[in-house]
């Protein structure tokens, strides 16, 4: 990532302010539309999960400038998701859902450069989560 892209991600996230829960709600909506087969893996009442998601997202966005800090979040997160049965292909689905959720909530200003910055940030997060997943998950488990 470039320093400018990191700034774009952090500023646009800060700009969400109280609308972060809107993003998380919209994210799960987008996700289940794309992959309805994932719905049963989640609890019926999503409220608690949405709060957790928002917290984690905030932590990650804040740690992007420091790779060691970012890794400490994402590797553990990846390992946990591997245990839930999440696999590499699912990360593409999640990424698409997250970007569209952000676009829906942020609106017109979620334009070319901001969207690209988020896409690159997400790829970085996804790769490091997957790295954590592979280290934690024995082959064939």
């Amino acid at each position, binding site marked *: *990532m*470039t320093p400018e892209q*990191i700034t774009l991600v952090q500023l646009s996230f800060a700009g969400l302010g109280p609308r972060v829960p809107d993003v998380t709600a919209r994210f799960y909506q987008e996700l289940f539309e794309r992959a309805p087969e994932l719905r049963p893996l989640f609890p019926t009442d999503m409220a608690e999960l949405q709060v957790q998601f928002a917290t984690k997202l905030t932590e990650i966005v804040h740690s992007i400038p420091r*790779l060691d800090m970012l890794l400490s979040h994402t590797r553990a997160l990846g390992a946990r998701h591997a245990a839930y049965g999440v696999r590499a292909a699912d990360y593409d689905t999640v990424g698409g859902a997250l970007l569209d959720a952000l676009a829906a909530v942020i609106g017109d200003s979620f334009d070319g450069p901001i969207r690209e910055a988020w896409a690159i940030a997400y790829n970085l997060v996804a*790769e490091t989560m997957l790295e954590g997943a592979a280290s934690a998950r024995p082959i064939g488990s």
Partner: protein
Amino acid sequence: MAITLQRWPIVGRRSELEIFERALCSGEQAGLVIYGRAGVGKTRLADECREWAAAGGHPTERVAGSLAISALPLGAVAGLLAGGLGRAGPDGQVDTLGLFEETRQALRERHQGRRVVTVADDVSELDPASLALLGHLAAQGTIFLIATVRTGEPVPDLVTGLWRDGRMERIDLGDLSRTQLDTLLHLALGGPIEAGAGREFWDITAGNPLYVRELVLGALESGALVERSGVWHLEDRLSGTNRLLDLVEQRIGGLSAGERSVVELLALCQPLELSYLEAAAPSGELESLERAGLVTIAFADGEVRLAHPLHGEVVRGAMPKLRARRILLAEADRLEAVNEALGPASLRIAVWRLDAGGRPDPAVLVRGAQLARHAHDFRVVRRLIEAVPGGERDAVAALLLGEALYELGDFDGSERVLAAGQELPASEQVALRLAVTRAKNANWGLCEPQQALAINARARTVVTSPAFTEELVADEASILMFSGHPGQSLTVLERIAGDDLRTRVVRAIVAAVALAATGHTAEAVGVAETGYAEHVALGDELAIAHPATHVVNQVFALAEAGRLAEAEQLARAGAEIVATYRIPIAQIWFAANLGRVATLQGRMATARRYFAEAAGLAQANHFAGPRRMALTGLALAHAMLGDASAAAAALAERAALPEFGFLSPEQRLADAWTAVASRQPMEAKRYLSDGAAEAAATMHRVAESWLLHDLMRVGRQDTSARLGELAAVCDSPLVAARARHAAAVAARNADELGAAADGFEAMGAMLLAAEAAAGAADVFQRAGEQRAATAALRRSQELAAACEGATTPALFYAAAHEPLSRREREIAMLAAEGMASKDIAERLYLSVRTVDNHLQRVYTKLGVTNRADLAKALGSSS
């Protein structure tokens, strides 16, 4: 933020790793093949797979192909071999399957039956014996094979075979996307990078991972890439080169002398033991090389390698020859001191000595040659035996070399070596094989069938055991068959009484061809099929042809039976296989048979292409006889395509070659059709009559029917009586179809001609079908049956359309008889659509009267009386 790159990150490959995981755990898959361009990350992905498997408790191995170690069979997989290099029997052969089985069981024992995840890097560079062993182990489930193949390199049969059977997963690896590259840079550098620098990396590398890696490590070392306040900047331009190789060269060029020594040692002899290298380079060179990403250390097995095959290529390319020689010999001495003779390490040692121009142990060389012979790798056989000093070559070595020279087209050399070999003490089996190989060389290579028969006769004084004598009888039959005497050949074959596997296989090689040529095509196909299966079961042995010979025979027999589609399909598959193994003689025969099948199909441009390929291969490999046959086919194809001068040129080229008896009557076809193309029909008839007479005298029945049928096609000569006789004694539907065609022509029976066309068409003989249909049209026409004539003519034209431009007299005749002129056809089509004469006249700017006149002629020509019938007549003919 100092970066310590213990491990270069892997990005964008997680889905591929999961594909590997599924394949490994399914239990059904034998392996995984990773395709992609150089530097795309095949090696890295393969190693990542291997390490993930190792972390999960799977035993793992790694073998790598490289030009440096491809010389000796099994050299690349020496690490898998349990004990020695197999044992040789009294016939001078190594029990290769036994060796493979031993290896398999030793691996099973060593790993308690768990599959060994085995990376075979650059599998295209492996020698055929190594490939065969890996294939055996993978198919048996002893190893899980991860093979990498560089785009553009040939994919070994082992891989395509397993893949076709659905037992091999395939991954096509591509370059990284821009986003993935950004992630890779971020992870490799440990932080953000300024926008311009990121863009420059993208512009230069286009996402090629190895390129990125070399560029980043190079830029870090040169100080072009620096970190300030947590952000990476480019202080200097990146290396100007846009070639990956140049970049690697620059990196290697910047090493210290001590580091360079280590890299050179690895480039020639890797993998090497960590402890040895630490002692050899005591000043931390290994550490700095690891930090620079040039070597990788596998602590589990204590082995050190170069990080990427490209590094080895560059280093070997830049190394002075004398220096390479010194290193190789020193390493050979070192390993020899601690290893047993004919043990697994002896292969590596011998290769190093060979590469260094030194003198390896002759026993290892002969054993290596025997293994290479098993894999039909004759170039390697020659190289290894020629490295044995002349005085130390025994009869077995002479046999191996003589046979290799024959297979590689050096017939004079083969004769010299085999004649000398016959003077050396030898077991009866070896003596037999020396004689048979020498006779084969005399007949096929030197085109001297009399000399071959004399060698065969002399051998009976030293070879006296009944089993071996019978092989000499089979050999005599073979010489007769392939010098143009199928009838005599069959008679000699009857003298063979034995029924053991080996005798049956030897007999089948000759019998299939002789039976097919004499018209027993069904039996011939069966003999070839069984012969192949039994040959494979026998395991390959010296001095008998490659098992593919049976497949060639089967193609020939199928063609003689008119089963053209089957013949074509089989020949294509066979051609693919022998191309992989680089067996020139078999490649020539498959190409020539494909040309012959295409000729029978009437696909003359295709035939021309295959014959040209066969002729080129035969010339390159100095096979005069097969070249003669290919040139015959080539002239025939040119002539039937109407190119008289090209046909004459091919014949002139053929005239410079020695006579060759195999299918010799068929060679007259080319002379005849060249005469046809040169408008000399009398000459053509003479060639065909002469050829048919020769075929009759030697019992080439199927060839005789071809020649007589062509005599009818070209010279309008009634040959139906003899063709009928041939059809009665042959089981070939093709011979029967030719007889039926000739009889119908003689009887001027249009319906029978139509039926003959049906028969040819069903067989895929489109040119003959087209000619028969044209003949039917002619008969209908003369009988005044216009409609039927038009329909038959239309059909003839449709069939001829599949013949790729063939122009034969019968087709020419048909073209001249298109019944409707262009204007008539135009008007007829409009009328058939229901348009009134007045409207047609207006559309075409004609008078109504002219339109009606044209229509009247159309009605007469097509034999119809009203517009409804007109539509039908046109419909059936369009």
